[in-house]
C-alpha cells in the first residue's frame, strides 16, 4: 500500500499526443477511477503507471520512490487486465502463485498456501486445480483478481475489469471489489468508461478526455458541480442549453426566455451553456424560480419513474419525474426548475 503521485506526465506515440499535463496526487488507500470515453488516454495512463509504456516526459512516484525509469517487473504492483491474461498452461493455483514465485518470497509451500488463501478470498478455492480455459468468464475474473492482490502490491491496477461480464455479475463484482478494498485498503486505480461504475465505486474520480484530465474530485462533487460541458454531459447526461448572460445572476436562453442562474464569474454578454440535470426538472409545477413553455413529445413510463422528452424550440430536453401524480400527455406544458440546481458552464 502506497500513495501515487504523477507530475507533468506526457506521453506521445510518434507525432500523436496520447497524454499531456497529467498531474495527480492520490493518497494511500484511495480507490481512484480513471473515467472517460474510449480513446481518452485512461488505459494509456494506467499502462504508464504499470511501466508497460515509457513516458515521454514527467514523473511517477509510488510511495515516494520515483519509478519512472523502472521496468514493470520491478514496480511491485498488481494489475488485472481487461482480458484477464491468465496463463492458459498453468492451473488456477499456479497462476495465482506466479507473482510470489517471481518475488521468491518464502518456500514453495508457503507460496502455495498464500495463493490458496487469495483464491479463498474470492471464493475460487474449490477450482484451484482447474485450468483457466475450464472456467466461466466470471470465474476467470475472480482468479485474475486473486492473482493481482496475492502479493500485497503497493498499488492495484484494474483495467476495465468488469466490461466483459453481464449486468448481473457486474453488480456482484462491484460489491465484492468494494468489500475487498475496504478489507485490504489497497490504493486502487480503476479504469472504466462506465460513469455509474466509477461513481458507485470510487473515492476519487479522474475524468479524462482527449489525453487530458478534465476534472478531479469525489463522485458527488463532479456530478453536483461539473466544471465543463464535457463533465456535465459525461457524468449524468445533463441537458445543455445555450444561453447568453445578461446581468449577474440572469441569462437569456437561445429560445428568447430570460431565466435566473447562480451568479458566477461570467461577465454580462458571455456565451454560456446552462446545464440542467434530468431529475431537477419538473413539468407543470408551481413554485419554481424558472419556467419556460415546452411541448411534451412523448412520456415514457418506466415503472419507478416517468421519463419525458420535451422540445424547447429546436432543442430536445429530457427529464425524469417520480411516478406520483398523473402522467402528462403529449402537448404544451411548462418546464420549471430551481435556480440553484442549474449550472453555468463555458461553451465547449
Amino acid at each position, binding site marked *: 500500500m502506497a500513495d501515487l503521485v504523477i507530475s507533468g506526465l506526457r506521453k506521445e506515440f510518434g507525432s500523436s499526443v496520447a497524454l499531456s499535463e497529467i498531474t495527480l496526487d492520490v493518497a494511500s488507500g484511495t480507490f481512484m477511477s480513471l473515467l472517460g470515453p474510449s480513446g481518452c488516454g485512461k488505459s494509456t495512463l494506467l*499502462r504508464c503507471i504499470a*511501466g*508497460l*509504456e*515509457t513516458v515521454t516526459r514527467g514523473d511517477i512516484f509510488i510511495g515516494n520512490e520515483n519509478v519512472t525509469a523502472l521496468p514493470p517487473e520491478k514496480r511491485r504492483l498488481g494489475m488485472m487486465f481487461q482480458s484477464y491474461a491468465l496463463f492458459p498452461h498453468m492451473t488456477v493455483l499456479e497462476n495465482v502463485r506466479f507473482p510470489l514465485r517471481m518475488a521468491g518470497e518464502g518456500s514453495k509451500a508457503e507460496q502455495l498456501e498464500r495463493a490458496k488463501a487469495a483464491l479463498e478470498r474470492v471464493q475460487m478455492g474449490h477450482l484451484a486445480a482447474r485450468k483457466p480455459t475450464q472456467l466461466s468468464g466470471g470465474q476467470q475474473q475472480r482468479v485474475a483478481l486473486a492473482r493481482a492482490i496475492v502479493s500485497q502490491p503497493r498499488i492495484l491496477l484494474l483495467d476495465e475489469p468488469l466490461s466483459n461480464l453481464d449486468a448481473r455479475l457486474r453488480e456482484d463484482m462491484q460489491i465484492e471489489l468494494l468489500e475487498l478494498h475496504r478489507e485490504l485498503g489497497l490504493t486502487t486505480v480503476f479504469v472504466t468508461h462506465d460513469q455509474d461504475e466509477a461513481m458507485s465505486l470510487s473515492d476519487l474520480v479522474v475524468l479524462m478526455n482527449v489525453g487530458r484530465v478534465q476534472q478531479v474530485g469525489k463522485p458527488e462533487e463532479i456530478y453536483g458541480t461539473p466544471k465543463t460541458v464535457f463533465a456535465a454531459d459525461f457524468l449524468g447526461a445533463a441537458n445543455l442549453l445555450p444561453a447568453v448572460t445578461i446581468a449577474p445572476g440572469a441569462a437569456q436562453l437561445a429560445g428568447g426566455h430570460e431565466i435566473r442562474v447562480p451568479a458566477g464569474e461570467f461577465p454580462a454578454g458571455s456565451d454560456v451553456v446552462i446545464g440542467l440535470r434530468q431529475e431537477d426538472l419538473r413539468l407543470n409545477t408551481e413554485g419554481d424560480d424558472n419556467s419556460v413553455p415546452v411541448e411534451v413529445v412523448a412520456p415514457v413510463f418506466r415503472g419507478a419513474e416517468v421519463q419525458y422528452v420535451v422540445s424547447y424550440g429546436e432543442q430536445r430536453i429530457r427529464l425524469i419525474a417520480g411516478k406520483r401524480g398523473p402522467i402528462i400527455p403529449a402537448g404544451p406544458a411548462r418546464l420549471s426548475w430551481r435556480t440553484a440546481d442549474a449550472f453555468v458552464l463555458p461553451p465547449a
Partner: protein
Amino acid sequence: MTQPLHLASRSSRGRKRPWLEPLLLLSPAIVLLMLGFFLPVAQMVFSSVTSFQGESGFSLANYAEVFKSDYYLSAMGRSLKLSLIQTVITLALALPLSYLMTRVSGRISGILMAIIILPLMTSVVVRTFGWVVLLAPNSWLGQMAKSIDPVRYGQGLLGTEAGIVISMVQVLLPFAVLTLFGVMQNIDPKLEEAARTMGAGFLSTLRTVVFPLSLPGLISGATLVFALSVSSFITPRLVGGSRLPVLAGTIYNDATVNLDWPFAAAQSTLLFLAVVMLIFATSRIGSRK
C-alpha cells in the same frame, strides 16, 4: 493451409530499446530465407538472361531456344493441359468431399480427415510407387484399361496421360480438401437453414448459399493445386515415362543431366513467372470479394 495469416500487432513499448528484441528474434529466419531462397532465385533469374551456351552477356537466347523447340513447346503444352485437367478434377472431387466433411459427425469427419492427411504425409515417391504398380499392364486397373482400348492402353496405364492424371489427382486432392475445408468450416449452418425456411431446396441452397461462400476457398485451392501440378515432375516422370515430357521434367533433365543451368534457369523462370502471375491474379480476385 493457404489462408493468409492476419497478424495483430502488439506493443513492445515500455522497454529501453524496443526494436532490439524483435530484431534478434526475426533475423535468423530472414537471413536463412535470404541466403537459402531469395538470393538463389534472384541469381537463377539473372543467370537465365546473362549466359547462353557458355557465353556471357545479356541475352534472351535461352528463352528464344525454349520457344523455338518443338520438344519444349510440346512439354510446356502438356504441362499446361494436364495441370488444367488435374485442377478441374481435383476441385470437382474436393468440393463435395470437404462440404461433406464439415457436415457429418465429428467421428466420421475425423476418419475422412485421417484418410486425406495420411497420403499427404507420405512421400510422393512412395505414393507414385503405388501407382506404378497399380497402373502396370498386368494389374487390375491396367487390365481394365486394356479391355476398354487395347491399342492405346496396350501397356496398361503406364506411359499414358490418363495414368498421369489418375495418380496426380491423388497427390493433389489433400491440398484442395484442406483449403476448402477451412473455408467451409466457417460457413454458418444456420445460413443454410435460413435458406431452407425461405423456400430453397437442398440443391438450390448449395447453389445459392454454400457455393458462393466457398468461392474464396475454391479460388485459393485451385491456385495451389495448379501451381503444384505444373511444377511436379516425379509422378509424371515415373508414371508417364520419357516419352511424355513435362516442363518440370525438362527442367530437371537440363539441370542435372545436360548440366545446362542457364537454360534450365530460363525454363524455371518461365514456370516461376507463371506461378507468381497466377497467384497475383487470383489473390486480386479474392480480395475484390
